[in-house]
């Protein structure tokens, strides 16, 4: 039975706990938490993940930069990415889309919405020919 490994990159312990609660119904699921973008990058280089849930506003390295680095890495490029952020403006959403983010959820979150989004991305993984983002 294949284990589902979910990376949650979020600086707020409250949000990490809430996301873990939301994903509880997922079977054979291991949640790995990272407290900021740099910690997230380190974990991505050490382990293989099925999906990544990433906040934008974080210390040390923000979420968009982390995603950019992920997409430049052939090992992590194919991992589906879900942004969970307080940023609700179109400018940020457009930046996320340009980076190839698979889903964008704004806070405050609904547990059912997060679960459904993760399930749908795991069931239908993104195309293998996704183009990596340009570094700026």
């Amino acid at each position, binding site marked *: 039975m294949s284990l589902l490994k979910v990376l949650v990159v979020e600086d707020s312990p*409250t949000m990490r706990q809430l996301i873990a609660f939301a994903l509880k119904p997922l079977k054979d699921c291991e949640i790995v938490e990272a407290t900021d973008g740099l910690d997230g990058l380190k974990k991505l280089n050490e382990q293989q993940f099925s999906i990544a849930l990433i906040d934008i506003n974080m210390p040390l390295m923000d979420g968009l930069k982390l995603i950019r680095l992920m997409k430049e890495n052939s090992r992590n490029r194919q991992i589906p990415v879900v942004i969970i952020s307080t940023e609700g403006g179109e400018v940020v959403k457009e930046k996320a889309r340009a980076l190839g983010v698979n889903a964008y959820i704004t806070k405050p979150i609904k547990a059912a919405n997060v679960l459904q989004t993760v399930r749908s991305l795991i069931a239908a993984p993104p195309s293998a020919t996704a183009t990596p983002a340009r570094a700026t």
Partner: protein
Amino acid sequence: MGPASRGEEQKDLFAKGKEFLEMYNKVAAFTQELMDQNAQLRQQMAALQTEREGMVNGVGDPSNQRLWKRLEELKQERQQILDRYHQKEEENKDFYERFLEIEMENNNLANLYVASYQLHSTLEFQEVLDVITEIIINLIGAQTFALWLLDEKKNLLHPVKAEGLALETLVPVTPGEGIIGSVAEAGEVWYREKLSPETTMDVDQPMVCVPLKIKERVIGVIAVYRLLQQKERLVKVDYELFTLLAAHAATAVFGARLYSDSVRKRKTIKGFLDLLTH
């Protein structure tokens, strides 16, 4: 007229007569054919009439009666199945609505559980303030807010935490003065009826004002000024979170303050004892 021309005339008449006779025979044959077809059609009509009468009269036939009866039974069964189907459809609809309600309730409970858990997960004063901030930003969805704590000696509310605005722009508030002071004095949550997006933010005019209360003792106030862009209005769980914050955040802050006081006093006493023993 001569004998030759009379002969010619007779020949013509004979030919015409022969032609006429041929035509007459053809017409007679055609007429006979039509009459035969007519008779045939009459016979067929009579046969169909007989068959129809037979079918009408044949309802009384036992095998036909059984078929009619079976047909009626099947019609009734079909109607019953349809009725049950519609009933199940309605039940499914009710179940689905109930499922959505439970899902929403589950979501609300998760928010409340996490908020409560995090508030009581630490005794460090600054960490408690950070948790309160996280709850208001991430769970309620507020963009701009501030937290005042009551200095009981001076009877003044001091701003200790702000998000979305500079802490320096906030001034101490006397209990009883303005909305924030009134909420601190009365100990009741205050909500603005409606906040227009064009309304200029005024630190004395919050959208929501929540007293941090332990029993009837107010120790502070949270004032929320603006919600996040994507959050149109407060919903049921937000009011529940405000109620939770009013009690649990107060206890957490009070406990953290006591803990930091006791740690400080312990250090002082230890230092004093070290001085005495050395």
